[in-house]
C-alpha cells in the first residue's frame, strides 16, 4: 500500500498527511511539477494554501502538471482523497461536484466539530458505519460547500454525501451541513475536516486515522 501526497508550492499539511498515511502504509510526496505518479495506490491532495490561494483557492493548483496524472489515476478507479485545500482543488478541477465558498462568518475557523458518517460508498469510509460520529478538526476560510439544490438532491439520492457536520456544529455554513462528498464512482472523495490531524489521541483524536485505515483495507486484496 503506497500513498502519494501531492506537494504544491504553498501546501502546508502535506507532511502531516504523509505521516498519517505512513501509519497504515508507505507514503511519499509527489512534486506538483511531475507528470508521472510512479507506483501509487492512493493519492492524497493535502491541505494548505497552494499558490497562496491567490485568485481562488485551488484555481491555480488544478492546472499543475501532476493534476493531469491524478485525473487519469482517478478515471482508472484509483482512490483520491482531497483534504481542505485538496477538496477545493478537486472541485475546481471538476473531479468533484460543487464549490467551496467563503465561510459564512468570513473568518478563518479552527475548531474540532463532530462529523457524522453518512455514506460508506467511498473506500475512505467503506470500513466505517453510517451514523458513526468522528471528532476531526477543521481549519479553513473557504469551506462553505455549495452546489445547486438539484445537484444536492442528486448527491443525497446517490449516497454521495459522505460526511456531515453533527447538528449545530457546522463551522462554515455549508449547505445541508455537508462536510465531505464523493464522485459518482465513489473513488474520489473531498472533505473539509482534516483526518490527518486526528491520528493520535495525544494530539486530540485518532478518529481521522479511520479513513486511512479504511482505504488501506479496501485496497488490501488488490495491493497484496
Amino acid at each position: 500500500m503506497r500513498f502519494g501526497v501531492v506537494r504544491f508550492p504553498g501546501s502546508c499539511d502535506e507532511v502531516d498527511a504523509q505521516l498519517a498515511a505512513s501509519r497504515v502504509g508507505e507514503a511519499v510526496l509527489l512534486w506538483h511539477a511531475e507528470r508521472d505518479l510512479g507506483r501509487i495506490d492512493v493519492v492524497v491532495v493535502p491541505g494548505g494554501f497552494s499558490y497562496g490561494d491567490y485568485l481562488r483557492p485551488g484555481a491555480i493548483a488544478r492546472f499543475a502538471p501532476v493534476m493531469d496524472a491524478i485525473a487519469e489515476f482517478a478515471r482508472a478507479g484509483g482512490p483520491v482523497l482531497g483534504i481542505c485545500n485538496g477538496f477545493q482543488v478537486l472541485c475546481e478541477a471538476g473531479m468533484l461536484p460543487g464549490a467551496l465558498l467563503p465561510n459564512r462568518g468570513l473568518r478563518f475557523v479552527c475548531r474540532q466539530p463532530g462529523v457524522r458518517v453518512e455514506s460508506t460508498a467511498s473506500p475512505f469510509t467503506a470500513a466505517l458505519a453510517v451514523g458513526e460520529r468522528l471528532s476531526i478538526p477543521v481549519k479553513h476560510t473557504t469551506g462553505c460547500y455549495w452546489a445547486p439544490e438539484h445537484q444536492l438532491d442528486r448527491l443525497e439520492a446517490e449516497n454521495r454525501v459522505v460526511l456531515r457536520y453533527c447538528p449545530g456544529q457546522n463551522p462554515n455554513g455549508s449547505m445541508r451541513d455537508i462536510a465531505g462528498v464523493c464522485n459518482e464512482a465513489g473513488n474520489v472523495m473531498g472533505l473539509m475536516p482534516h483526518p490527518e490531524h486526528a491520528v493520535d489521541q495525544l494530539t486530540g483524536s485518532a478518529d481521522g486515522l479511520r479513513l486511512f485505515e479504511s482505504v488501506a483495507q479496501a485496497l488490501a486484496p488488490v495491493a497484496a
Partner: protein
Amino acid sequence: MKARVLVRPKSGILDPQGQAVQRALPALGFTDVHEVRVGRLIELELDDPTRLDEMCERLLTNPLVEDYEVLLEEGARR
C-alpha cells in the same frame, strides 16, 4: 491593450462579504444602500482579446458560482 474582468458572485449565491459590507454601511450613516455584492477586479495587459472569455471560464472565474464581465479599453474589439 488593457482589459478588465469584473468577477462577482452569481445572483442567488451567498455573498457573505457583500452582506457584511451592507450591514456596516448604515452604521456610518449610509442608509439608502439596498444591495451590496463584493467581487474582484482583474486587470490584464494583452495583445489579443479574443480569448478573454476562455480565460475567464477556465481560470479567472469559477463559472459554477461566479459571473464575469469583460471591459475593454475604449475602441478595442473582441
